[in-house]
């Protein structure tokens, strides 16, 4: 039971970080139909901005200004990069963001170098809030949880209660109709893209010091964020939340329980003393394949329910 609670708790912590990334991505997709391949790069940019700003004025100003800066960069990318490409269709946009991810990685390496930068957890929150099963839980981890829950609530209210939110919702189901009603769609696009990037930026600010800030951080986190929004259903905020939490908890459970998979393979006739390629299967446990499980889930989801848990459009 304790292991269960522990995995739940850690899973929620990790899942909420994934959600913060996925929320911006799914928001951009729902309004613009653009799958932003560079989304994790904006997450990385947030971490690097936060590192640079916190070096001079501390973590708290960085928490505010780094996401704002990332948002401005995102808006500029939409205005001067994505918009001219828009008329060539979604494939062109997709390819543009795909290229953008590489460009951003190179630019970041040029500015901050290729080795990890020492971006630290703020000293004010770097103490043990409580101890459970002999492990400290730093106040910073709780802070991460609070920020991410706060963002979810704010985002939800924003979309459900504000005018812009209503437009986003309308665009979700009837994108052409919103355009024909005469709303300034290009500007909404620009700011939505910027806003989505800023959300990724926040995730970068509060995640960069825990996961390590280095040029490969976008590439290693990027795919999992796509898994989250595809499983949750493209364009669904609720779906992104549930999928992110599910993946976070599944990851923790798989490692904590570490169940041997041999009995499953045994059903297919794999023997204990197997040789060659089967040799690796015999010793496989859920812990060993934990990072791959979300992708397995992705494949299953695409086969059985291509629109995801809460999606309204097929992938």
């Amino acid at each position, binding site marked *: 039971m304790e292991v269960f609670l522990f995995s739940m708790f850690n899973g929620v912590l990790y899942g909420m970080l994934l959600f913060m990334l996925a929320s911006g991505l799914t928001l951009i997709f729902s309004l613009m139909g653009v799958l932003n391949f560079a989304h994790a790069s904006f997450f990385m940019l947030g971490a690097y901005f936060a590192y640079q700003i916190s070096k001079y004025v501390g973590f708290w100003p960085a928490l505010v200004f780094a996401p704002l800066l990332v948002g401005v960069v995102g808006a500029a990318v939409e205005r001067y990069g994505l918009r001219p490409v828009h008329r060539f269709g979604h494939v062109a946009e997709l390819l543009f963001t795909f290229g953008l991810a590489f460009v951003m990685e190179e630019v970041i390496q040029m500015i901050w170098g290729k080795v*990890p930068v020492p971006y630290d957890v703020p000293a004010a929150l770097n103490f043990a809030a409580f101890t459970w099963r002999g492990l*400290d839980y730093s106040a910073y981890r709780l802070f991460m949880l609070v920020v991410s829950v706060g963002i979810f609530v704010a985002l939800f209210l924003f979309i459900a209660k504000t005018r812009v939110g209503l437009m986003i919702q309308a665009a979700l189901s009837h994108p052409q109709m919103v355009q024909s009603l005469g709303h300034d769609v290009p500007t909404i696009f620009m700011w939505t893209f910027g806003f989505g990037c800023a959300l990724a930026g926040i995730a970068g600010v509060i995640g960069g010091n825990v996961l*390590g800030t280095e040029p*490969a951080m976008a590439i290693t*986190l990027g795919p999992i964020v796509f898994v989250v929004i595809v499983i949750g259903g493209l364009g669904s905020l609720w779906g992104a939340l549930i999928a992110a939490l599910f993946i976070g908890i599944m990851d923790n459970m798989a490692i904590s329980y570490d169940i041997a998979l041999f009995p499953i393979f045994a059903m297919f006739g794999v023997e204990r003393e197997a040789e060659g390629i089967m040799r690796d299967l015999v010793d496989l446990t859920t812990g060993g394949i934990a990072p791959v499980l979300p992708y397995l889930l992705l494949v299953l989801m695409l086969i059985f329910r291509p629109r995801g848990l809460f999606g309204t459009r097929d992938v």
Partner: protein
Amino acid sequence: MKHVMKLLFAGVVAVVFAVSTQTAKAVDTIKIGLIEPLSGRIAAVGKDALDAFTFAADQINKKGGVLGGIQLEIIGLDNAMNAEKTTEQLKKAVDQGLSYVIQGIGSNHAGNIIKFIDKHNKRNPGKEMVFLNHSAVTTAFTNELCSFWHFRFDANVDQKVAALVTQINRDSSIKKVYMLNQNYAYGKSFQSAAQRLLAERAPNVEIVGNELIQPFGKVQDFTPYIAKIKASGADTVLTGNWGPDMIRFVKGAVSSGLDTQFYTIYGGLTSSIGGYGSDAKAVNLKQVTEMHENHDGMPDDVHEYIAGYLAKYSDTWYADRQRWLIYMLAAAIDKAGTAAPIPVAKALEGMTFDGPLGQVTMRADDHQLQMPLVVSSITEKAPKSVKYKGNDFGVAFSTDGVADLAATTLPTTCEMKRP
């Protein structure tokens, strides 16, 4: 008279020609190819290696080069950490007529180079190439996959693990060890070497956990692993992790207040120390290396070399084996009296060199350099802290213990085929 004049003229021509070829040879250089990632994600590591080898070659050249005046030149060949490009660069090296190729980052590439050169040398007698490996540590390269054309100047995984286990056995407070490694060839060879050597050399130590993780940054959150380590009651973690898998592991452990020691091979890489940030001061981490700057009793020339490198590149000298490689190659060329690869390779066999911890020997049986190793702890109190590209990390290593040649010399299964 006419005849005499003709003869005289011919003689003069011959002498001039001989002299001119002689001087041409004197300013000639021996070109050595360095195949490493000089672009792409881990280009920083490749560029550091290029700097290190260029500096080492410069030192040889300043002392008059080899064979009485021939200079060494290091040529960077970019493989972008990519298998096809490694082969491409090898072909380029063949076209340029290079006899010596250095590589070390990535055992998979090293394995390809060994295969390529074996094939090339068989098909092109008289145009042989020699592979000088500075860091690819897969033990098999000097065991079942050994080749006459390959020389390894780094300790292999088994030697490094032997040094770590020797040190673990000296610390009687270590009772329970948890092993966590990356699930690929290197991590698995670390794991099996550690299991075998712990049983042989530290029978009182119990292995309470043995975990393989998905490598190369796929694990984002190490908390569940750290919880398992805590629950196992381990007092020491033994890990071969490097890169983000090491940085996240350490950061996770420090933020969770996990109070075990970490015995590592690559925990002290400069890039990792940068990544730990302030956690570098909190973690109880040990590394095994061929030397480190704060080790007592190293010869003066090593300290001079370290100071020279710091002055030129503002980096702390890390991999002294790269200096040994160039110095031993130069000595082998001088000993052979030629830069031709086969005599030089034969001269390298059994060659000794005065390393920072004592003599090192290129074992002829398997072309594996035999060397003492030092286990050291990361600390703020070290006299000289680690510097990298103008950053001072404020921490460095201080020696816990040395594993002498007796501790690090392991048998080989190599059956060397000589030309």
